[in-house]
């Protein structure tokens, strides 16, 4: 234990130092305190004090949004909350977070911990942190070099989660909803909506067959990939019945109506995108199961919004530019963006700048994900021109040709300087600019260059 207290003391000291440096360097949170503590005491996570309630949030998409939302609402409801929202979600980030939440005598200072947990790190964290609750948003395809495929991550989480943990799971995800079948569960779902599709429409669907009899699954509704309500017509397997159900999404009035314990409850809708609606549903479902009264949750949500920092809209006269970040290498993310573009009303052009320049600086990007992403969506006739930017634009061009895109609609550019000249920029047309995370600092510059050239008459 001496080693633990030394680690705690030095970890806290290093954190003070870093905080002072941040004021000058204006940098984000650091994992260093946790890293230092774990180097001194490898069992640090086991010994560090935890608040009375520990809630872990994991999944392929939506962890950060869900963690931030839950932390904010719990604070509104009078809880003091410890969260790693400014740090990393791996074991050193969790260690940093937890050491900030205890005194030098290792006494927890907060009521609850809301911890975003990288799903791949589950085996390094849950045996020691032992969450009371685990919210899993979804498990879908991620970067193949790190996360391989959803069933690998399923196995990792399944092995790691303690038996005592109550799981809050997405009933519309037939992979993650089968985690730890012996644990206590609470399922949430978004019920069938008018605009739902009835058949899977993506190239990728990691739940095409019944896990019991291997017969093809059918879907009552599909949101994207395998996310939806499925059943087996042969053996009767089906998606779990939700304990908390969003019956109606009213985007026009910004409301969602839930049914819980036989009662209807209306909540503000914080976002119109299906990813974010699922995130909000997960958190509201958890809060209600946790025992927070409906009115408290609803009133807290009124002041909240999910800032979709990945999307921005700019206008100049009759031209609209919508810039969307799509995480490079993630076919699910790319497909959702492509679907958004094709569904947007009116004619449009699109610019794709998706290559990972960070990898390309010293290596070659693994472009297998091009063949999991739904480039077929971009062949919609409403998309009049497609500009592909990057040193490997030809790979995208080949993929698009195989998707059925006419050659004459595509323009390949080696770099972004020529984007404005490559666009038609017709009046009353929308331009979509889809970019990888690493180009975020160029978005404004490129957006301004696109918007402020002369326009053409349609």
């Amino acid at each position, binding site marked *: 234990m001496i080693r633990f207290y030394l680690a705690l003391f030095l970890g806290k000291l290093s954190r003070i130092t870093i905080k002072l440096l941040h004021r000058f360097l204006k940098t984000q949170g650091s994992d260093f305190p946790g890293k230092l503590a774990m180097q001194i005491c490898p069992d640090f996570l086991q010994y560090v004090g935890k608040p009375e309630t520990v809630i872990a949030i994991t999944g392929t998409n939506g962890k950060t949004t869900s963690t931030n939302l839950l932390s904010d609402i719990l604070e509104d409801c009078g809880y003091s909350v410890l969260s790693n929202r400014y740090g990393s979600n791996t074991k050193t980030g969790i260690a940093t977070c937890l050491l900030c939440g205890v005194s030098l005598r290792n006494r927890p200072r907060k009521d609850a911990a809301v911890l975003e947990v990288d799903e791949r790190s589950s085996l390094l964290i849950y045996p020691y942190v032992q969450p009371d609750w685990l919210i899993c948003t979804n498990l879908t395809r991620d970067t193949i070099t790190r996360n*391989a495929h959803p069933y690998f991550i399923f196995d990792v989480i399944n092995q790691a989660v303690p038996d005592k943990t109550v799981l809050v799971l997405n009933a519309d995800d037939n992979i993650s909803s089968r985690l730890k079948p012996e644990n206590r569960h609470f399922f949430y779902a978004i019920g069938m909506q008018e605009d739902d599709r009835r058949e899977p429409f993506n190239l990728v669907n990691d739940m*095409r067959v019944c896990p019991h009899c*291997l017969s093809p699954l059918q879907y009552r509704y599909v949101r994207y990939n395998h996310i939806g309500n499925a059943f087996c017509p042969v053996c009767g397997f089906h998606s779990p019945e939700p304990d908390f159900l969003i019956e109606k999404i009213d985007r026009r009035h910004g409301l969602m109506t839930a049914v819980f314990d036989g009662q209807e409850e209306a909540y503000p809708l914080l976002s119109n995108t299906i990813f974010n609606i699922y995130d909000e549903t997960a958190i509201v479902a958890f809060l209600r199961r946790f025992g927070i009264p409906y009115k408290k949750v609803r009133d807290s949500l009124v002041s909240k919004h999910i800032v979709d920092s990945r999307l921005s809209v700019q206008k100049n006269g009759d031209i609209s530019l919508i810039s969307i970040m799509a995480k490079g290498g993630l076919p699910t993310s790319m497909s959702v963006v492509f679907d958004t573009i094709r569904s947007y009303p009116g004619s449009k052009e699109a610019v794709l700048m998706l290559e990972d320049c960070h990898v390309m600086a010293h290596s*070659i990007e693994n472009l297998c994900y091009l063949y999991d992403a739904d480039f077929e969506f971009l062949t919609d006739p409403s998309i009049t021109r497609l500009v592909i930017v990057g040193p490997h634009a030809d790979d995208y061009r080949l993929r698009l040709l195989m998707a059925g895109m006419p050659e004459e609609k595509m323009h390949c550019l080696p770099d972004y300087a020529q984007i404005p000249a490559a666009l038609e920029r017709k009046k009353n047309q929308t331009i979509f600019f889809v970019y990888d995370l690493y180009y975020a600092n160029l978005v404004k510059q490129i957006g301004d260059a696109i918007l402020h050239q002369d326009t053409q008459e349609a």
Partner: protein
Amino acid sequence: MALIEMLYPEVCCLFGDTFNVNYLAECEPDIEVVRTGLNDRPAFLTRPVSMIYMGPMPENVQEIVIEKLRPYRDKLQEMIENDVVFLAVGNAMEIFGQYIEYEEKKMRLPGLGLLPFYAVCRMMKRYNSLYRGSFAPDDAEEIDIIGFKSQFSKIYGSETGCLFKTIREAFPEDTAHDEGYRTHNFFGTFLLGPVLIRNPYFARYLLRKMGYVQPHLAYEKLVTDIYRQRLTEFRNPEIRY
């Protein structure tokens, strides 16, 4: 007209590799592609196939696939010996070996026993690498091979029938191990890309093996330009594998 049978595409469909078959079908439009599901009777039992294709799958599916194919083991052996083209990509290749050892689970899964190698699967050690090698077709000059590797398992005991001769891979100790396995017209490889789109001349070679005398390559100029550009990059000694 050639027939390609894709085995279990509903589960053997990771990493975009179904486009290997899509690409071949675009090369020769008279190719018929049959998709055989897990509960379907394989087409190869009743029809002459030109190629059997199986793509990478989640590791927990390997046991299911082996048991589905086990009743047809003798037929598969006959087809291999009769030079039917097989293309098994990623961990699909392991199905045909002696066994798959899952190191963390301390479990050994018997394979179909059609090929001499065995596989060891280490789920906590993902192996990622660029790959450059060469392929020596029986009737033409050597082909440069490039691709990507992202896998949990490796095969051992394949020295007598390696498919590609490794020139460069991520870890020095692996340059002694050549890539994949070949016997007759069975081609097994861990290379992703998809491998046939990344290596159009290898795709053309397979089409010849399927019976096409002068096979076409779909989008020939583009796909070969991309291949040559990538090969230059893969040859760059400064590039980290």
